[in-house]
């Protein structure tokens, strides 16, 4: 078997020119990237961009129409059995059995991973401890909070001690506290040497966790690099505000041309203006406020925020990240 991974020294994950069509929907047009062993790759993009399809191909759940992908040198189509020995997956929904306890859930996964009764039991114990679920171990998963269920689901994906772990939007739907908790868990995991591929809709999350980010839109990679490089391209913080009277918003936008690190962006629906500050920094804030004040405009709801996925898309593609491009594809 050519290119089998037993003596593999290349990247943990290698994806080249993946394409996949579901009926009339072209889910993936051309996706290529590599993930070095022991690093974290963030797949960043809006709903329907092709993130989940990419993960489903890499985890052997869906066959690509075109292109090739390998995990530790094993082809995800021709050597799917070997790939499954190496990977762990936590999908978008928490795939746990509500009526069973956390411990039972993990033990069953351990048995299905062919660990044997004793090792399955020990592994469950160890993971419950590590994910802060020891106290709740013998309670039904139904009684767990959303954050606890996600942690249990993450623990389940680790039972087989995968070399490469896939997390599909691990923190979507979690409250900020649970999200931070989960980030902590994921960081520990990575420190242990696991190669991780995670998808996210949040630039902040990719920034917090990923060594490398691949931005996908409409099934195509539109940018790749470190989070720092990406943020540099977007240009740092963004000043956002509304003006009183609201009718003079367009006038305000015209006043601010040339002040920031890019043209001001008008959001007519929300009646707000946002101004990318970039390297201009606080000087740009002062200049902007002075100009508006001189024109007799009052500023309302002023906020300084970090660039969002929207800003990334605006910069990279010239259009906003279209949330909910279509129904999220399952297949």
């Amino acid at each position: 078997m050519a290119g089998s991974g037993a003596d593999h020294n290349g990247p943990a994950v290698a994806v080249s020119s993946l394409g996949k069509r579901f009926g009339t929907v072209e889910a993936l047009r051309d996706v290529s990237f590599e993930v070095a062993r022991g690093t974290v790759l963030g797949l960043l993009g809006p709903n329907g961009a092709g993130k989940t399809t990419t993960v489903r191909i890499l985890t052997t759940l869906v066959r690509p129409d075109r292109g090739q992908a390998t995990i530790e040198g094993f082809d995800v189509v021709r050597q799917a059995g070997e790939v499954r020995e190496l990977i762990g997956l936590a999908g978008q929904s928490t795939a746990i059995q509500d009526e069973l306890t956390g411990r039972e859930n993990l033990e069953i996964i351990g048995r299905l991973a062919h660990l044997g009764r004793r090792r399955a039991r020990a592994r469950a114990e160890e993971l419950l401890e590590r994910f802060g679920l020891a106290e709740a171990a013998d309670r039904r998963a139904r009684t767990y909070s959303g954050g606890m269920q996600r942690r249990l689901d993450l623990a389940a994906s680790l039972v087989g001690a995968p070399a490469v772990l896939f997390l599909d939007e691990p923190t979507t739907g979690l409250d900020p506290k649970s999200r931070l908790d989960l980030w902590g868990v994921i960081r520990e995991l990575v420190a242990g040497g696991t190669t991780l591929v995670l998808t996210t809709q949040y630039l902040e999350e990719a920034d917090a966790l990923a060594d490398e980010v691949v931005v996908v839109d409409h099934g195509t990679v539109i940018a790749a690099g470190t989070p720092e490089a990406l943020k540099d391209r977007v240009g740092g913080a963004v000043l956002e505000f509304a003006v009183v009277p609201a009718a003079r918003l367009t006038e305000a936008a015209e006043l601010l041309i040339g002040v920031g690190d890019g043209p001001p962006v008008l959001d007519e629906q929300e009646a707000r203006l946002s101004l990318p500050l970039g390297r201009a920094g606080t000087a740009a804030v002062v200049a902007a406020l002075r100009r508006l004040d001189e024109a007799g405009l009052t500023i309302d709801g002023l906020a300084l925020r970090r660039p969002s996925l929207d800003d990334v898309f605006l910069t990279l593609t010239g259009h906003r990240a279209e949330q909910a491009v279509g129904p999220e594809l399952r297949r």
Partner: protein
Amino acid sequence: MSATPVRDPGLRPPRPPAGPSPRPGQRSGPLRRLRVALGDALTLTRRDMLVWTRVPTFVLFSVIQPVMFVLLFRYVFGGAIHVRIPGGYVNYLTPGIIGQSAAFASFSTALALAREIQRGVVDRFRAMPMARSAVLVGRLLADGVRLTVTMLILLAVSVAVGFRFRTGPGDAIGMVALAVAFGLAICTVAGFIGLAIRDEEAVGTFGLIWLFPLTFVSSAFVPVQSMPGWLQAFAKNQPVTIVIDELRALAVGGPLVLHGWESAVWLAGIVGVFVPLAVRAYRRA
């Protein structure tokens, strides 16, 4: 949660560039593969049964409905239905209800499999090095246990309202076994539907509508001869009638051989068609 990175002793180190290591799936013979498949299925059977012990209401409801049918037909409709059978209508009815209930027990098979796909459980399993057949086979084994228990409770209730076996214990056991086998065959159809529709709500609403004409336009509750001619043609030759006639022959006597063969062929046919379809739907889930 502590923020200090702890090396997971269970995690593999970055794979060493060593020589070829034995890999399950590559070096295993068909016998070992079969053993692994059976082990995976049994793990899931135990899981399904463990879930049922946690939701006693589910088990209760799955028995209450057939028991209600027994009581309704025995005491409400039974008086108006005339059959020539030793022991009267209750002896005609019981094998019918047994067959109908065995078929309807497949409802929860369809629901459970659709739910597992919807909740991502099947995705997790399919990304693991476990047998492809395990989810379906494990579920069917658990369903076999559930069906047997349901059938025995139903028989006990029927006896309480007047049903009597007029055959030997061997035939009685044969009747329960055939009912369970029939129920399992229908479970493979329902399993395919659950895996193909993959939406719990849709399955709950439409998934088993086809069972109503099949079980009611049969010899389950009334003799087929009482139906209009055009309907008789269907009722006489469809599998539910054939199986129920055999159940009835096993319970109260009658020609066993012909219906027995026909039943066996039907069950084998249903399983032979729908197991491959269900496995295909699982692979594509």
